[in-house]
């Protein structure tokens, strides 16, 4: 007797749980307002990417055309793909001491896997994630970029920024 009860219990239990699942999908089916995908090229104007979105590596510059990169090369060492090349040069600063500054921070977007190791390891926090993602070009050389702007210089560290 027990066996028969269990058998029909199984059958009705299965139908009940399957019905519960069908209710969920059925609800979505008749509620098209729940759609979460966006129509991309149409919504391009008002498209806002998420803060964590990894579009490309950029180097922010402030209003005086200054960046924070010291040219240490740690990002270059950390990049698993060799997407970053640091070309630094030695200059003599106003105090008469020799100093290393960045000449070119070259970033090959075409080789980047967006792993984020460079950004994580930069001691000066000079590079961050940009939100631009429309990278399609007809010539791949256009994907090689110099991140420090022309005639930019290094921001000297103040007390506050050192704390960060």
């Amino acid at each position, binding site marked *: 007797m027990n066996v028969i009860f269990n058998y029909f219990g199984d*059958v009705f239990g299965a139908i009940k749980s399957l019905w519960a699942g*069908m209710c969920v999908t059925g609800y*979505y*089916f008749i509620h098209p307002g729940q759609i*979460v*995908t966006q129509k991309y090229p149409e919504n391009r104007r008002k498209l806002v990417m998420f803060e964590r979105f990894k579009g490309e590596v950029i180097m922010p510059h402030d209003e005086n055309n200054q960046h924070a990169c010291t040219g240490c090369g740690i990002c270059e060492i950390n990049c698993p793909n060799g997407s970053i090349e640091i070309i630094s040069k030695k200059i003599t600063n106003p105090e008469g001491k020799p100093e290393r500054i960045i000449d070119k921070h070259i970033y090959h977007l075409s080789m980047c896997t967006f792993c984020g190791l460079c950004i994580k390891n930069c001691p000066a926090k000079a590079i961050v994630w940009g939100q631009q993602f429309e990278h399609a070009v007809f010539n791949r050389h256009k994907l090689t970029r110099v991140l420090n702007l022309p005639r930019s210089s290094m921001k000297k560290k103040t007390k506050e920024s050192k704390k960060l």
Partner: protein
Amino acid sequence: MNFSIYDFTSFINWIDNSLNSYMSPGWAILVELVILGLVFIAFYAVIGLYLVLAERKVCALIQNRFGPNRVGPIGMFQTIADLIKLLMKELIYIKHADTFLFNIAPFIVIIASFMAIAALPFAKGLHAIDLNIGIFYMIAVSSLGVIGILISGWSSNNKYSLIGAIRSGAQVISYELSVGLALLSIVIFSGTLQLSGIVESQANGWWIIKGHIPAIISFIIFLTTCTAETNRGPFDLAEAESELTAGFHTEYSGIKFAFFFLAEYMNMFILAALAATVFLGGWMPFHIAGWEGMNNVMDYIPPVIWFFGKTVVVILIIMWFKWTFPRIRIDQILTLEWKYLLPLNLMNIVLIAFIVLMGWYIK
């Protein structure tokens, strides 16, 4: 001649008579067969393409997406564009494949579904052939397709294809039983195997209503088993993209792949139409005995619309299954059939026989 969209008999007779008056009977039959073939091919293409589109739309809505929405308004022409693309694709030659069987397999699959569609009554007087063993014929023919699947898997010289084909064979052979038994329950109610006869017997109410509980059980079993028969999710073990790349049609490309794809959707359409015909009254409008006013209003809607409306509802339910349930394992599939569906079905048949004997259904 007065034609009506409620009864196609006069229209069909008119075509027959006018052809016979122009040519000898032998030629007339030949011309009729050619016309029929062309009509069915056109029907096949349109229905197949739009079912694929409907499936993609339903799946998209269930998964909170838009689905195809670029080609034409709301993606109307997406599948037509896909077909054109498939027509232009290369047919890849497979090394060490059994070329003859490999090439013939898609045709077997598609011919099997063509044969099944011939027996469907679309409206009063509108069917290609009204066999007096219609249901028997449908069951026999709809399982022919599995031969094509087995051949395609065998001849592809690919392990995945072979596994997919063997799974499909095991599955279709098991579920064939339950499909037959589920249909048999209505045959007991209506007392005929002829599809037009079964439709006529539902003039005063559909069998799912007249046959109450046992008919509903049969209907549920039939829906489950025909999902399995057509190799659709959650029973799509023969394809099982995640395990077998694409199962039996892994090695097919271009238009041969399209044949398999179309046949899968047409089989779904045919089984849904069969479910609608047998359980939901086919082209018969919704009638309740005694409610003359409502019956007249219902009669006003053409039978073709009733037929396709019911079929679409059944198709939507089958699609709903596919996009809700996860794929089950091969042992679970066989357990479901042999330990649950088949015994329940047999019990149900005995119950129905008893009910019919005692006259405990709405006559």
